[in-house]
C-alpha cells in the first residue's frame, strides 16, 4: 500500500520532468548541499533531477503522461533507486565527520572502536594532550584486526580487563598496527633473560606500559649505564643484579630519563656536597626518584637538610626518603619546631624527633606524631611566616 503511495509520488515527480523541455521549463541540476564526506559521489549524481542523463523514459513521453500508474518498468527502476539509498543509509552515520581535527571527540559517535575503548576506561582527553602522534592511527583502528589480538596478548601476561584502560592511556602506542606483538614478546623475553621474574614484569606492565614500545638494544645500553653508574672523577658505583632489578621495578621511569641529567645529579651530590660513594649508593637504593629531580631542586633540598636543619651527611644518606616531600612544607615545619624550641634531630639528645616523622605525611599527621599541638596552632604560626 505504502509502496504504491511512494511510487505514485515518484511518478508525479518524473511526470513533471517529462514535459517538453522548453527554455522556460528546464529544471536546474539539484545536488545535496553539505554532503557528508563518507557519501560516494555516485549518489549525488542520481539525486539531480535533470532532463538529461538518468531520466529513464526520455524516449516514451507520451505513454507516461497518459497512464499515471502504468509502466511497471518505471516503478521498478524507481524502487531500485530507493534500495541503493537504503543500503547506503545502513552504513552511513547521521553525524558528519570532519576531515581533520585535533581531538578524538569528533569521531567517537561514529566509531565503534573508540566507543569500546571508552567503555574499557581509556581516557581520550589525556591521549589528546600527551600523545598527539597517536591520534592518527587510533581513529583508523579495526576492532578485530588490531585491538583484540593485543588485548589477548596483554591478558596472557596477567593483566586484568579492568587494567586495560589505564595501560592504554599510559601508552596508546601499544595499539599501533606498526608495533607488532612479536616486538612486545621480544622485549619481555629480553627482560626474562635478565632474570626479571614474571611477577615483576606484570607489575611493570601495569605501572609503566611504555617499556613495551621501547627498543631492546637501547634498553640494554641504559641498563648497562645504571649497573656501572659513572660519577665525577672517573669513579663508578656498581649495582648487583638484584639491586638493579629492584631499582628499575621501583622507579621504572629511569628507563626513559635523560641520562645526562642523572649523571649531573650524581656529580652534584659527590662534588658540591661531598657525599661519599657508599652514601650515594645508599641514597639511590632507598629513593631512586632522587636522580630524576631537577638539579636546582635537589641542591636546594640538600641545602635545607644539611645547613638549616644541621643534619650530617651520614644521617641524611640513611633517611633519603626525606627528599620526597615538597621543600616549602619541610621548611615551614622546621621553622615551626624552631619557634617552639623542639627542633632536635640528633638521636642522642632529649626530645629527639625522627626525620621521617617530621617530613613525611600530611600536616595533621605531623602534628600528631611530633606532639606539637593542634592543627590550629600550626595554622596560626603559618599566618606569621
Amino acid at each position, binding site marked *: *500500500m505504502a509502496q504504491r503511495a511512494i511510487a505514485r509520488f515518484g511518478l508525479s515527480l518524473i511526470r513533471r520532468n517529462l514535459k517538453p523541455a522548453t527554455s522556460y521549463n528546464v529544471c536546474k541540476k539539484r545536488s545535496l548541499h553539505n554532503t557528508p564526506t563518507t557519501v560516494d559521489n555516485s549518489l549525488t549524481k542520481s539525486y539531480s533531477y535533470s532532463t538529461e542523463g538518468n531520466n529513464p523514459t526520455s524516449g516514451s513521453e507520451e505513454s507516461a503522461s497518459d497512464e499515471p500508474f502504468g509502466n511497471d518498468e518505471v516503478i521498478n527502476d524507481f524502487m531500485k533507486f530507493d534500495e541503493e539509498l537504503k543500503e547506503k543509509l545502513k552504513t552511513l552515520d*547521521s553525524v558528519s565527520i570532519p576531515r581533520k581535527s585535533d581531538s578524538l571527540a569528533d569521531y567517537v559517535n561514529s566509531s565503534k572502536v573508540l566507543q569500546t575503548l*571508552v567503555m574499557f576506561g581509556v581516557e581520550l*582527553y*589525556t591521549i589528546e594532550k600527551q600523545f598527539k602522534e597517536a591520534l592518527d592511527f587510533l581513529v583508523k583502528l579495526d576492532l578485530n584486526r588490531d585491538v583484540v589480538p593485543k588485548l589477548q596478548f596483554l591478558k596472557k601476561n596477567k593483566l586484568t580487563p579492568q587494567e586495560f584502560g589505564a595501560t592504554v592511556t599510559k601508552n596508546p602506542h601499544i595499539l599501533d598496527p606498526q608495533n607488532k606483538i612479536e616486538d612486545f614478546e621480544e622485549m619481555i623475553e629480553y627482560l626474562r633473560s635478565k632474570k626479571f621474574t614474571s611477577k615483576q614484569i606484570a607489575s611493570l606492565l601495569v605501572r609503566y606500559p611504555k617499556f613495551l614500545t621501547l627498543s631492546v638494544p637501547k634498553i640494554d645500553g641504559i641498563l648497562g649505564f645504571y649497573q656501572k653508574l659513572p660519577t665525577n672523577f672517573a669513579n663508578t658505583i656498581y649495582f648487583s643484579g638484584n639491586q638493579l632489578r629492584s631499582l628499575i621495578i621501583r622507579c621504572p621511569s629511569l628507563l626513559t630519563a635523560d641520562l645526562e641529567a642523572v649523571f649531573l645529579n650524581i656529580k652534584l651530590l659527590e662534588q658540591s656536597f661531598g657525599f661519599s660513594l657508599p652514601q650515594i649508593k645508599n641514597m639511590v637504593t632507598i629513593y631512586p626518584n632522587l636522580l630524576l629531580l631537577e638539579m636546582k631542586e635537589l641542591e636546594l633540598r640538600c641545602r635545607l637538610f644539611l645547613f638549616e636543619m644541621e643534619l650530617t651527611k651520614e644521617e641524611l644518606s640513611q633517611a633519603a626518603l626525606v627528599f620526597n616531600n615538597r621543600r616549602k612544607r619541610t621548611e615551614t615545619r622546621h621553622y615551626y619546631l624552631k619557634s617552639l624550641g623542639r627542633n632536635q634531630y640528633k638521636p642522642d639528645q632529649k626530645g629527639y624527633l625522627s626525620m621521617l616523622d617530621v617530613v613525611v605525611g600530611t600536616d595533621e599527621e605531623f602534628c600528631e606524631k611530633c606532639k606539637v599541638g593542634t592543627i590550629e596552632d600550626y595554622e596560626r604560626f*603559618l*599566618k*606569621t611566616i
Partner: protein
Amino acid sequence: MSLPVTYAPKAFRWLNGIFAVYKPADVPHYPFVSSIVDKLVLDINSLEQRPQKKRVVFKRQSEIEDSDHPVDESNQSHVGQLENTLKPVCVPDWFDHPLVQGPRFRHSDFELLCGTTLDVKACGVLVVGLKDLGSDLIKRFDRAKLPRKYLAHGHLGLASLSATGETKIVERSTWQHVTADKIARILMHIQGTHRKASIRQTGVDLSTQKAYELALEGLLKPQQYCGPIILDLKLVEFKPPKFGIEVTCIDEACSDIRRLIHEIGLILKTNAICTYVQRQQDGPFLYDDPNTLLLRQINVQRVLESMTYFRHVLTPGMLKRHTHFRNETLVLPDPVSKAPTQTLLTAASDTQDKGVTTDDDTLLEELSETSVGG
C-alpha cells in the same frame, strides 16, 4: 556552618565574589594565584557533575534498544508503521562522555583578579576576586583606597642595595646610640608631615564647614595619586639592633615600606635594612580572621563561606564612589611625580613653604642624592 554544596554547577555559579587569602613569604605572586585556582578546580571536579548529554538519532523499530528513549511519546501513531520506518530516539552522546571530554571544569574557567599585589618577600593578606562580581568588587575596592596596615621589622647598622637582607651590604655603621625614645619621636614627625600633606593635597578650601565635616569622617584624602600617605606610625618592639614598626598607610607598595625603614635608619644617623614585611590589614580584611584562607585551607566550601562572611563585612557605603568633591572647585597643588629619587619625607613636604628648611631637610636632600636605593 552552612550545608555543604554537592552539585558542581551550583557551586560554580555561587563561586562569585570577593574574599581574602594569606600569602606566605618567598612565593612569587603569579604561581601562588594560579595554585589557588588549581585547588578550586580540583575540588569542584570531585563534586557531582551534570549528567551526560543526549542526542537524537533516527533508528528503525528493530534496532531500538531498551535504553533509548523515544522523543515523541504523545504522538505515536500506529497506522502505517512498518519495520523499516525510522523513529527519532534519544541516545547518550559519546561526544559528551567524561572520559572523552575530561574534567568538566578547567583552570581557564576561573578568573582571579587581585587587588594590590605583594612582593615575593612580603607576606600577608591578599584580597582576591573570583569571576565577574569579584572583579567588579576588586576594581571598586581599589578605587576606594581604604587604609592598609603593615608590620615591618628592621635591622639597624646595615645598608644594602635593595634595603633588604638579600642583596649586597654596602655600608655598616654603629647603632648603639639609638634608643626607643628617639625612634618614637622620628615616627611622630613623619606621621605629622604626611597627614598635613594629605590634607593639603586634596585641594579643598580648609576654612569651610564642609572640609571640617569631611575631616571628621576621615574622607579628606587626595583624589589623585600623590605618593604613599602614612596615616599612623607606631613603634611596636625594640630589641637593639632589631626594631619593629606598624604602618597604616594609603596607596603604598611593599617597596615603599622598605624605603621607609631605610630612611628611618638614615635619620637616626645609622643605617637600616628591612627583614620582614607583613600586610596585616587591607581595609576590613584582617590576617587573624579565620576567614582569610591559607593555601592549604582552600576548597569550595570554605571559599563560599568566606565570601558570605566578607559580603557582610564590606558595608554598603564602603565601596561607594564618593561624590562630596563633585561640585567643589579644587585648587590642587603641583602634582607630585613618581620619581624614586624623592624620599618619602620630601614628597610629603613638597607643598610646604620652600623658604623654611630645617637642618634635617638639607641632610635628607644630600643623603637622598647619594642613597643607593634611589
